[in-house]
């Protein structure tokens, strides 16, 4: 088959009919040819404006509202049936499907009645962070912080209710670049925008150190924990993320970096673009859809192909697990719900779980989901979750 021309590829992109392979090819081509990229942007701009105008003119608001009412009525009937799942319908559908595959007879089995007093009170984490300057003076940020924020070092920052702190819109142009540190506690998450427009999602128990303005030939930040970052494109100034003596060097891309001190692995997952992961001087390239795992004890680096959404979903509000061991899941939940896990039944440490969990659910709801597809029961004492075999838990808590 003859390869498509650039015009055909752009036309198919506009129509949403481009295959994944062609998309990758077009993307690479645009990245390598500024002229083609400009053409792409021009076409997309005009196409979008025309489409918007057409859609605005052709929208029947009254009909839409009727449809909405009908949909809402149908959902509230259904919602009563699936309320036990919490969360949205999409998450529910996935979990149910997984359930059926794992336990075809699950509907027949009696659910163990486990008393989980106190569990439902453990709320999910929330938007919060602490911003501190070089002298260590700190200011707390939550989703309710004001839209303008003055930091202890006198920098005036724009705080966008959706986008978080925006260094790219803050009036720091005439000031010297200062170093600030954004710390997200256990049970928190935070998203903000760096001075170059790059967006950073910071997960629980993580820290990012960065300049209020980027000067010099490269853009460098330092992190520990987990971040997902969408780097603003700037060929002239590479973007470097340091995690201890590891680093990731990029031009413009989206990737997830996990480097928690309590995890044995440093994991770089690339969504788009291209990056290089370096452990000291040892560097390997990472391509989109790939993940590089560095085992800190052996120093071995392994590149594998992964479903990137599993590793980046937290930034958009869900935890996605595919055959993930309970111990790894427990470490993640520990950071988000601020609890401790004890494996009273150690054989479950590697027990795989597949499913989708919304980060805004309570711990109770999340644990119940996991219980549905495994022989595991959770019991909570203060802020410690005990992981037990279902029968054990059943005998303990049965009145």
């Amino acid at each position: 088959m003859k390869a498509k021309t650039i015009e055909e590829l752009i036309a198919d992109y506009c129509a949403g009919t481009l295959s994944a392979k062609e998309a990758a090819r077009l993307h690479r081509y645009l990245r390598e040819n500024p002229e083609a990229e400009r053409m792409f942007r021009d076409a997309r701009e005009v196409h979008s404006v025309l489409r918007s105008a057409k859609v605005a003119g052709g929208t029947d608001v009254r009909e839409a509202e009727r449809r909405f009412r009908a949909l809402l009525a149908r959902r509230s009937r259904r919602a009563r049936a699936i309320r036990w799942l919490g969360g949205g319908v999409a998450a529910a559908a996935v979990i149910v499907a997984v359930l059926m595959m794992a336990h075809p007879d699950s509907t027949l089995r009696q659910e163990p009645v486990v008393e989980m007093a106190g569990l439902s009170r453990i709320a999910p984490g929330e938007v919060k962070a602490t911003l501190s300057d070089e002298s260590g003076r700190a200011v707390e940020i939550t989703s309710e912080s004001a839209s303008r924020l003055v930091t202890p070092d006198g920098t005036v920052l724009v705080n966008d209710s959706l986008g978080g702190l925006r260094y790219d819109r803050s009036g720091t142009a005439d000031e010297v670049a200062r170093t600030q540190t954004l710390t997200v506690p256990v049970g928190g998450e935070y998203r903000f925008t760096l001075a170059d427009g790059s967006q950073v999602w910071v997960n629980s128990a993580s820290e990012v150190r960065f300049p209020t303005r980027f000067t010099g030939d490269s853009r460098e930040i330092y992190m520990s924990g987990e971040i997902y970052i969408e780097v603003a494109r700037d060929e002239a100034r590479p973007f470097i993320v340091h995690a201890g003596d590891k680093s990731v060097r990029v031009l413009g891309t989206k990737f997830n970096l996990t480097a928690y001190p309590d995890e044995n692995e440093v994991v770089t997952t690339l969504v788009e673009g291209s990056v290089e992961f370096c452990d000291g001087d040892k560097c390997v390239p990472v391509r989109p859809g790939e993940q590089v795992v560095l085992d800190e004890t052996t120093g071995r680096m392994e590149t594998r192909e992964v479903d990137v959404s599993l590793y980046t979903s937290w930034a958009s509000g869900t935890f996605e697990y595919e055959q993930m061991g309970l111990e790894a899941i427990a470490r993640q939940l520990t950071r988000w719900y601020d609890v401790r896990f004890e494996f009273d039944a150690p054989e479950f440490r590697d027990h795989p779980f597949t499913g989708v969990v919304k980060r805004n659910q309570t711990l109770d709801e999340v644990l119940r989901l996991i219980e549905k597809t495994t022989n595991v029961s959770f019991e909570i004492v203060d802020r410690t979750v005990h992981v037990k075999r279902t029968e054990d838990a059943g005998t303990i808590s049965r009145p």
Partner: protein
Amino acid sequence: MENHEEAKTIETLLAAGDERCMNLLFAEYYRDLCAYAARYPLSAESVEDIVQNVFISFWENKRGRPFIGSVRSYLFGAVSKAALRWLRDEGKAYFEDIETHVDDFWESMFNREEEEAFEKLMEKLREAVEQLAEQPKRVVRSIIWEDKPYKLVAQEMGISVNSVKTYYVRALESLRKMLGDKYLILLILLSRKKV
């Protein structure tokens, strides 16, 4: 900026869990949100489905308690997120890294203050379409105003699908040139300054 009276009423009704809140939301934002979502490479139906779903989850999750922040920005942000999720889930290509630079421009287009600028831009575009040669003009009209797939346009015009696509993209390019940089860039700058 948004209409403050209206926004206040919406917030009050929402906090009270009063369904009339949704009547107002539809009247105030539905059309704009659809137009906003249409900037992504989505079909007309998916545009409406996405906005509908955003309204549903907004109502189900936010009613009955005070809303913090601006409802308007929240809805635009939610539509954008939902559209990106839809594209991802459907396996559709969307080059966020190449397209994001116009984000602010888009949101500002549906601000009341910018309405006039948007109208002017549309007027310019309509004029520019008129100036295209006969074939490309017909291609643009069929694809945009009549919402026809490339294949159908090709059949109707008795040319190959490839020619339709090539005509179309080249027409978009020359429209962009006719508009000149100053229009789009002016709007982008305008929206940047305001924030």
